């Protein structure tokens, strides 16, 4: 059993409420930080912990905090990113639904460290009922002097507000989120300036993911150094993984980042194996935008080493043979799934969610969807596969925000690893409407080059 820092108490009865959360040791970290530490000392602990942003990019949280500009007389803001819209990802929801006070406590501590007196939680519009849960938790925290004016008699004031979006994946991108929070369309801003200098209403702003901010609580409780001892290398602490697809036990799991992908998929403690006795074909381990891998490259790296559930190991081999940790949205596909069709639904998703500001993304996502549709429905040509490759390459790196890359990568990886399945669709326009390509050779052991 791995160590649990976030979800250990998530299923204690009544933990949604202040009294139970407090009885179970909650708000001790807030007390410690606000009454015994200076704001910069809190940031220092977060730095020492090695905590990396859990929203997808994995940027070190402490470093981000230390970049925050602090000009005299200008307010600073902390914004919590609860937009959670990357397909495969549903971990923040779990945390907010079951143990909302952990997030609120994390926000109080982080707001104190950053000097934010108005802190916003931007939550995706569809999570409407979670808004009620969070607002209730905030009111309970206020009644107990952990939110509001003069918190714990320290003179520190902090209001926490929940802002509900209205349906737009792009608002998870931090500058689009800020635009949306200001009451505008969610069009990402050109960077620089970065939010740390010019963010919400042009004030210095830190945007962090829900899980990142919740992790600040155990960091303060056990100390940054202790936290950094969990995990390996630059993958410190614990990570929430939301697992879905063709597995026996879909759900949200907290792992320390030392277990292997194989164990994660097959052990009863986690996914419990592939559903219905089927075999594993492929997996998208970090949310829909990270590269899909066939079973053989997923379980072992190209060097033949077991792949581990952490930032370094998942990306081992680069995009040629590796993938990414991303948001921790772990999507498992069994032998009956069609890679072309799965890629098509993702391409449609990105076309739908493109904000339309940059032509490579606006036009390219539409073209990719159309071509994939043709291939999937037996109307594709061999040259379409090369055309797809060409389009995704022209999007990548040529747009204002990373949604362009996020749309390009799944298509690129699908062609890179499953080209034969695309070709089969083209060569068998009738058969491909009646059956799927199947497992083919995707689970067969790869020849490992020995030095």
């Amino acid at each position, binding site marked *: 059993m791995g160590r649990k820092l976030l979800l250990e108490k998530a299923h204690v009865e009544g933990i949604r409420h202040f009294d139970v959360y407090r009885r179970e040791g909650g708000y001790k970290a807030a007390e410690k930080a606000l009454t015994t530490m200076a704001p910069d000392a809190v940031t220092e602990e977060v730095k020492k912990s090695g905590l990396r942003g859990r929203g997808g990019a994995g940027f070190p949280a402490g470093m981000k905090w230390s970049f925050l500009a602090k000009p005299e007389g200008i307010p600073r803001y902390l914004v919590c990113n609860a937009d959670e819209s990357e397909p495969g990802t549903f971990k923040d929801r779990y945390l907010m639904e079951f143990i909302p006070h952990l997030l609120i406590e994390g926000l109080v501590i982080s707001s104190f460290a950053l000097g934010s007196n108005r802190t916003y939680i931007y939550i995706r519009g569809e999570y409407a009922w979670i808004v009620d849960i969070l607002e209730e938790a905030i009111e309970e925290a206020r009644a107990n002097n952990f939110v509001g004016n003069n918190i714990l008699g320290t003179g520190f004031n902090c209001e926490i507000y929940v802002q509900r979006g209205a349906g737009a994946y792009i608002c998870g991108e931090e500058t689009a989120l800020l635009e949306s929070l200001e009451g505008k369309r969610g069009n990402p801003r050109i960077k620089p300036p970065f939010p740390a200098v010019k963010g919400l209403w042009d004030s210095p702003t830190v945007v962090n993911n829900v899980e990142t901010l919740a992790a600040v609580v155990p960091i303060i409780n056990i100390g940054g150094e202790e936290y950094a001892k969990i995990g390996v290398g630059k993958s410190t602490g614990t990570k929430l993984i939301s697992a879905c*697809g063709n597995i026996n036990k879909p759900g949200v799991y907290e792992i320390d980042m030392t277990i292997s992908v194989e164990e994660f998929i097959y052990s009863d403690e986690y996914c419990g194996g592939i559903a219905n006795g089927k075999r594993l074909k492929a997996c998208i381990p970090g949310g829909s935008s990270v590269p899909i891998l066939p079973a053989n490259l997923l379980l072992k790296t190209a060097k033949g080493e077991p792949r581990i559930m952490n930032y370094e190991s998942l990306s081992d081999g680069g995009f040629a043979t590796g993938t990414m940790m991303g948001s921790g949205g772990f999507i498992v596909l069994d032998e009956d799934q069609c890679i072309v069709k799965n890629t098509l639904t993702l391409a449609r998703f990105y076309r739908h969610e493109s904000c339309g500001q940059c032509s490579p993304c606006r036009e390219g996502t539409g073209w990719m969807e159309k071509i994939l549709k043709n291939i999937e429905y037996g109307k594709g040509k061999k040259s379409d596969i090369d055309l797809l490759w060409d389009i995704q390459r022209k999007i990548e790196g040529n747009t204002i925000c990373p949604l362009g890359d996020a749309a390009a990568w799944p298509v690129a990886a699908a062609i890179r690893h499953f080209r034969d399945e695309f070709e089969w669709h083209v060569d068998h326009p009738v058969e491909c409407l009646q059956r799927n390509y199947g497992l083919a050779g995707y689970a067969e052991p790869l020849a490992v080059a020995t030095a």
Partner: protein
Amino acid sequence: MMNPFSEAKMKQVDKIIARYPEGKQKAALIPLLNLAQEESGGWLSEPTMDYVAGLLKIEPIEVYEVATFYSMFNLQPVGKYVFEVCQTGPCMIRGSEDIVKHIKKRLGIDVGETSADGLFTLKVVECLGACGYAPMMQLGKYFREHLTPEKVDKIIDECTQKAAQQN
């Protein structure tokens, strides 16, 4: 202009506007449109949007710009119950297409249509953050997860009964 807010809701409106610093009340736009839509039968008419513009002292065009950007705002009337079935990868591989098919057959409507009695609208949407509980749909404020055709039938019956009681 049409005020969609009751007196009680106006208090909530004031509370929302107070969340932002002086002069930044435009930030209340999306929350107010969410509220206005809930209070106006699930969609936003032009007069409703104009009223919200007036409340926030911004131009109507600033409201239209936003209302057309976000997928949760309906700019046309919708049924009393809107079934929003997720169709993205993780839901697709767990059978969301069968759910859509079943709803179409059962209600005799296509995606994007509203049943003749005005009770049901069927929409397909992209990932709602419930991929582990697929297939699923949003119905009003809540998610309905682990859907099967039988479960969908029950939900439809439930809605029909509720609507009958309210009439």
